[in-house]
């Protein structure tokens, strides 16, 4: 671990961390652009880098992008990233009351402390968890993947059935191409370009970047009106720390735990810790009106989810969030196999990720405090200039993968699919998780069946597999019943209000 941290103190590594965190904050600060988009767009640029430098740059971007959303959430009432939605509720009112520096300062310090908490968990839990994961049977792994997909569909927000639809759709589009187990060409429908399947990069850039560009193109006239910025009160005093200590620790722990759960992500983490902070507060009436506790809870938790989400990625090869799913793709592109064996096959990468996360947290804190005025200016650059350039980057990035226009058309197609799915109220998170995990699930199921001569009963008799499948089932039933109850109560309310 010490080597991992010390290894980041080379000129190249530090430059990548600085560039990554800086660009992450800038993208996070611009409403409509997300960290997932930035990381997906940067992937083609990392082809010529070593795996070590590529992971350094991408992890640094991840850390920066989560924090950047705080700026516009506080000053424009527009969350720069979905993870900063809860910060908007109290950040903007506090900034509007004449304390923008205080609102941003609280958020920045809370982000820093939340990240450090998550780093401790990342550095201590990942290795033992991966040692445990090596002992999992193929059926156990299959059950784990199924649980992850149900979990994201159930907990990630929105409609459960629609979440499952996008999750299964993500799985379905991985099947065209050569069957990895038997070498048979399947589901290409006579298209020679499809023999290699839909590549990860065009699909990811299409789903996350192009669909977002279309959505932004639809809302082009909305212009943010920034508040006047003053840096007064940006640093948290020791007294502030004391007052917020319990809130900081609780929110960081909640964020880390939520991050570990596959596919749940920063938005849920910050919402949950905000709820806990409100429940535990002596002044709950201030929440939503500029409560300092609210800002601290939201920001500590959303940053902690980044470190938490890296734990299942490193230890199990299961993405803890949508961005982690893209990171899995990045590792695969660099011929690395994320999962329990990564600790033995490429320990330098694992410890580099952990070391970079630690150093990037300090860099993020410094860059946020030092360059805050610059980010405030950047965040109001009109999208009319940004979108054409981002679109060109999407086309070029995808083309450079194989120098083929088929990939560019694939990107455009998935951009349209992503846009339409979102317009119809489908959550895109499960899509990418399903896409990344489908091949693992299929391979493990077939591997398990080969071991048992086609006998599937171990899947339903092995205690660990049964436990994971049961959790998935219970979660599904619970989410469906909660959704049903919510819809019914809303129906009753509407009927009462429109009744005679």
């Amino acid at each position, binding site marked *: 671990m010490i080597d991992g941290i010390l290894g980041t103190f080379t000129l190249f590594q530090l430059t990548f961390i600085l560039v990554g965190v800086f660009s992450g904050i800038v993208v996070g600060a611009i409403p409509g652009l997300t960290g997932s988009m930035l990381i997906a767009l940067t992937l083609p640029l990392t082809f010529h880098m070593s795996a070590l430098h590529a992971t350094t740059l991408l992890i640094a971007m991840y850390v920066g992008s989560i924090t950047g959303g705080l700026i516009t959430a506080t000053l424009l009432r527009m969350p720069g990233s979905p993870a900063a939605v809860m910060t908007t509720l109290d950040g903007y009112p506090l900034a509007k009351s004449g304390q923008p520096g205080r609102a941003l300062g609280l958020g920045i310090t809370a982000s820093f402390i939340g990240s450090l908490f998550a780093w401790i968990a990342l550095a201590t839990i990942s290795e033992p968890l991966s040692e445990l994961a090596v002992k999992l049977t193929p059926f156990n792994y299959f059950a784990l993947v199924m649980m992850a997909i149900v979990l994201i569909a159930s907990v990630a927000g929105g409609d459960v059935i629609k979440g499952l639809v996008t999750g299964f759709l993500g799985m379905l589009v991985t099947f065209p191409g050569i069957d990895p187990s*038997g070498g048979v060409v399947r589901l290409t429908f006579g298209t020679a370009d499809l023999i290699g399947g839909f590549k990860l990069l065009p699909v990811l850039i299409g789903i996350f970047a192009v669909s977002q560009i279309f959505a932004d193109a639809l809302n082009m006239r909305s212009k943010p009106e920034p508040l006047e910025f003053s840096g007064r009160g940006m640093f948290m005093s020791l007294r502030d720390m004391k007052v917020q200590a319990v809130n900081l620790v609780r929110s960081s722990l909640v964020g880390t735990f939520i991050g570990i759960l596959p596919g749940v992500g920063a938005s849920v983490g910050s919402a949950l810790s905000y709820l806990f902070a409100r429940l535990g507060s002596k002044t709950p009436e201030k929440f939503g009106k500029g409560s300092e506790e609210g800002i601290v809870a939201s920001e500590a938790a959303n940053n902690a989810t980044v470190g938490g989400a890296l734990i299942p990625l490193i230890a199990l090869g299961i993405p803890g969030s949508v961005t982690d799913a893209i990171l899995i793709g990045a590792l695969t592109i660099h011929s690395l196999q994320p999962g329990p064996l990564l600790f033995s096959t490429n320990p330098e990468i694992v410890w580099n990720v952990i070391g970079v996360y630690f150093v990037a947290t300090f860099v993020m804190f410094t860059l946020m405090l030092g360059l805050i005025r610059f980010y405030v200016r950047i965040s109001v650059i009109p999208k009319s200039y940004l979108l054409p350039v981002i679109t060109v980057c999407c086309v070029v990035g995808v083309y450079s993968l194989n120098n083929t226009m088929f990939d560019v058309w694939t990107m455009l197609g998935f951009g349209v699919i992503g846009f339409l799915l979102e317009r119809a109220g489908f959550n895109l998170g499960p899509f990418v998780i399903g896409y990344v995990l489908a091949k693992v699930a299929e391979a493990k199921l077939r591997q398990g069946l080969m071991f048992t001569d086609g006998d599937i009963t171990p899947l339903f008799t092995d205690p660990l597999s049964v436990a994971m499948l049961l959790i998935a089932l219970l979660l599904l039933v619970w989410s469906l019943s909660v959704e049903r109850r919510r819809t019914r109560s809303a129906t009753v309310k509407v009927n009462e209000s429109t009744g005679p």
Partner: protein
Amino acid sequence: MKKVLQSAEIWVTSALLLVSLVFLVGALGLPGGVFDPLGPGAAPEMIAGALIVLCLAVLVRSILRGQHSHAPQQDDSIDIGKSGDDSTPRSLILFFGLLVAYILAFQFEAGHFIPITIAFVFASTVVFRGFDRLSLLTAAVVSPILSVGLFYVLTRFFVIRLPGAF
């Protein structure tokens, strides 16, 4: 707004249902396994089958909600920062057309990367900002700077091969 969402839901889900059916039929036509009991078609069959069931559930629910107009549709989206009234489908349609033309220009190698990109960035900026004199002037200044800048950064610094005729 909810009606629009509901109709979009029905159309999109119907399209997904059709895609799942195509995949299911394709998977059913695949041979059985040689080395393993499942074969290449089993997983696509299971997933396409599950997707069909789920799409049907979404469709039935959506149609029932449409009939019982008292029943509100669940909408978990958060409105912060969104401005639905400002939607401009015209700019989206024009931009989409420009993007398709941009990709087609590369597909048929209609020219070098720089002029094609200048034209695309100029036209998109004008579509987004409007057709007034100031927008045209800004787009005329910004598009060559961005296109030439991108070309040099991507080819010289990142050593990426760009689309278009050389």
